[in-house]
């Protein structure tokens, strides 16, 4: 933690010097102190919009986690479906979300619905990949064991496949946090009345670049907070996936 702060201080110091030296216009790159000032001056506005975006991203990640987990279980259980659908999923990730975001807004309106859909759409894929990998790593002998104990297919799912898949799904969600935040910004660009993406969209043409950067700072903080929350969820939900060890390589 101390090192994170030191590295951050170094980066901010360099940025401050670069911006102060007058190499670039304030409208292009405000100095960190200006961003800090904007964070303080606009704290009411930013706090309100941070809340809006956080309440889009957090449920969006949960949706992505559930959709990704269920999809991975289905693909794992039915190999013909996996062979047919997996390449399409990979292809779907290459579609720039900015292209389809307005379409989703047109279809589903300006509420939370299309924003959840967009965030889930950009972030479910890592969950599918990591969950499928976790399922593929199940020891075949483990399946044989459940077979000799006469487990039904549903029991196999509940006692073997689901617990084996969960750590993978949570890892995928951690990877997806950053893209989920970017997805929320694009969703708000496409149509919204509030949120940090909306703040950025309005601040740029008003040449309030420092405010836009303040919003970006909060987006980064949001991503870090969600990542930490998912790490906590991992400890609580899948304690077996984490081994405490007091040994470290020298």
């Amino acid at each position, binding site marked *: 933690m101390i090192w994170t702060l030191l590295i951050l201080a170094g980066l901010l110091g360099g940025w401050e010097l670069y911006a102060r030296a007058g190499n670039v216009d304030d409208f292009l790159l405000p100095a960190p102190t200006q961003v800090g000032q904007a964070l303080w001056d606009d704290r009411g506005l930013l706090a309100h919009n941070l809340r809006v975006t956080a309440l889009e991203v957090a449920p969006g990640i949960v949706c992505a986690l559930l959709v990704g987990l269920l999809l991975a279980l289905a693909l794992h259980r039915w190999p013909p479906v996996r062979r047919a659908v997996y390449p399409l999923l990979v292809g779907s990730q290459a579609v720039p979300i900015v292209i389809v975001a307005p379409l989703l807004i047109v279809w589903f309106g300006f509420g939370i619905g299309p924003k959840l859909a967009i965030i889930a759409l950009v972030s479910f894929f890592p969950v599918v990949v990591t969950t499928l990998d976790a399922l593929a790593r199940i020891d075949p002998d483990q399946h*044989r064991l459940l077979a000799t104990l006469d487990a039904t297919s549903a029991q196999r799912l509940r006692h073997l496949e689901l617990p084996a898949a969960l750590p993978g799904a949570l890892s995928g969600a951690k990877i997806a946090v950053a893209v989920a935040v970017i997805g929320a910004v694009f969703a708000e660009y496409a149509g919204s009345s509030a949120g940090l993406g909306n703040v950025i969209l309005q601040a740029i043409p008003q040449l309030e670049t420092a405010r836009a950067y303040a919003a970006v700072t909060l987006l980064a903080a949001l991503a870090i907070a969600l990542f930490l929350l998912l790490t906590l969820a991992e400890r609580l939900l899948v304690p077996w996936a984490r081994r405490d060890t007091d040994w470290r390589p020298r």
Partner: protein
Amino acid sequence: MPAKGAMDRQQTAPLPAPDTQTGPALSLEGVGFAYPPARRGAAPVEAVADVSLVVEREQIVALVGPSGCGKSTLLELVCGLRAPSAGSVSGDPAVLMPQRDLLLPWFDALDNAGLALRLRPGGSRAAARAGAQATFADFGLTGFERSRPHELSGGMRQRVAFLRTLLSGKPVLCLDEPFGALDALTRAEMRDWLGAALLRDPRTTLLVTHDVEEACVLADRVVVLSPRPARVLASIDVPLPRPRRATDPQLLALRERALEALGA
């Protein structure tokens, strides 16, 4: 009263009594098995060839043979996990105890031991834990009910796995090198422990091992198998009283005979 029988199945009797039908517990006639070829154009891999074997109720039969000879495949055939490509397997239902303990890391020791009870129709977690708890002391596991598998020693993990196998309630036990993964000291300890457990609670048992001494100490009969594909080379009765000592001269003589049959 068929309804009562159905009730009995669902109860959490810790070690359900094996079925008592007539005839041998297990009968293999000319059993063969070949794995499908790994690549197109390759020949199928014959793992078991023409094995005939009759196991009486509560008899312990050890299968010894060189490693990779198809012993494990034979057990999978007996447990119905694979269908033989030749011959027939008949007899009581058999449960497999695989070579590795395969305890589920998300369950504690008690949940792992009671897994079979929980998987039964109408089984519940509470009933399974209660059923496993009833025999935990006999297995020297008291105090470790809530331990996760990685917190247990190798010998304890193997005992939990053996308890899980017993609690399946199937009359025939198929043990696939149950001590193969243990160090020599623990291995000898576990061998004596298993001998005592089977003396207390006799079961029809097929024990696969590559350790001839272990086979002679534990089994009523030692069946020597050939290198792949597995065939029966010799069947040696071990008519010695229990508990047995590995250093007993009579046992040593039988061990020599088995080793001779193995060609060692």
